[in-house]
């Protein structure tokens, strides 16, 4: 994630207005996908995306302007968790609108950007040997399977029903 944050600094995506514009575009695309793929009402999901965008904006802003060395990811996560906390006055409204935005709609649009970003590393990627690719593939698979198996064992040991 540091890469993305670094990336933003040498790219002309500055200023809160640009951020809002980008988030607005992202929201609209997501909402369109959301209504096509999951047939959620456009109005409600737009409000949901607006809420998520606001949390994001606040988090990114805090990372830049608060004097702590904390990533925006952490600010955003904490805000999201606290705002949705059961019993918080905000939680009912928040949950209603945010639940109208499917995670998969966000993911799909997001990964399209990841794909574009990937192109940048394409030449470096081609320069690396096939052996390094083999290692990477095994590393990724083992980190996933490792934690899946540990999680499963702990869940079974602590008696969590499936």
């Amino acid at each position, binding site marked *: 994630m540091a890469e993305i944050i670094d990336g933003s600094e040498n790219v002309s995506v500055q200023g809160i207005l640009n951020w809002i514009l980008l988030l607005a575009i992202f929201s609209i695309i997501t909402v369109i996908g959301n209504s096509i793929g999951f047939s959620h009402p456009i109005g409600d999901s737009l409000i949901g995306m607006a809420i998520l965008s606001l949390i994001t904006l606040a988090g990114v802003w805090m990372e830049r302007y608060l004097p702590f060395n904390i990533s925006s990811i952490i600010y955003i996560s904490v805000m999201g*968790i606290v705002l949705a906390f059961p019993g918080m006055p905000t939680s009912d409204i928040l949950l209603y609108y945010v639940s109208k935005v499917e995670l998969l709609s966000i993911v799909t649009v997001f*990964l399209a950007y990841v794909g574009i970003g990937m192109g940048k590393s394409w030449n470096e990627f081609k320069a690396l*040997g096939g052996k390094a690719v083999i290692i990477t593939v095994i590393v990724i698979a083992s*980190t996933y399977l*490792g934690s899946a198996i540990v999680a499963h064992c702990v869940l079974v040991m602590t008696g*969590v029903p499936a």
Partner: protein
Amino acid sequence: MLILVVIAELIGTIKIPITHDVAITIMPLIYTIILGLAFYLAKPIKWIKRKQARIAEGAMMLFIGVLIAKLAVSSGQSITLIFEMGPALILQEIGHLATILVLPIALLLGFKRESIGMTNSIGREPNVAVVVDKFGFNSPESRGVFAIFIIGTVIGTIFISFVVTLSLSFLPLHPYAFAMASGVGSASMNAAAIGPTLAAFPGMETQIEAFAGFSNLLSFCVGIYIVIFLAMPLTEKLYDILEPKIGKDSITQKKEDD
């Protein structure tokens, strides 16, 4: 401004697969990644050039934020459940140490000290920072971790959704375990891993999103200390033990000729 509109237009094109690809669940995600990459690589399409790609990357910080916010809202909603599952959530972070088991394979393939950088972790941004900090920018260890980073950037998202899909069909694990495992410490891989998991367990969306998001947050804040204090020393120790036995000189020589 123009660039932004262009990006929007591009995404508009990619949007289409979602409508008719409900059956094969990983397809929409994979589609968009590959299309995004293809649009960049297809040089005839002039408007997605390197600069736009960099802007897309800069903007990604914001879009990751939206993704994280959505996951955080799910986590907050299920906070009591998360506390109940606390032990599993924390211990599964230890499961990421499984990457060290790849070290012998790296040695057998002829990597030397590069293998330490390659196999101490999944090699995402925080891990790269740890390795570079410890061994220096021009060390073989850093070369190793950079290689994993770049390859992971290019094929990681596609590959992990493939691994997840296979695991879901062949491993009889707890749904929560799949959700927790998808938090590998990379937002894009996290996103790509959640998709198939959500599709496999309908009706558990909120719990899966909650665990996946929280686990990724844990990987991000706690995982780095596991790498520094546990994974890295273990990898080095294992290297010292194994390298004299199964390390191969000739291939390293060849690698340096490359």
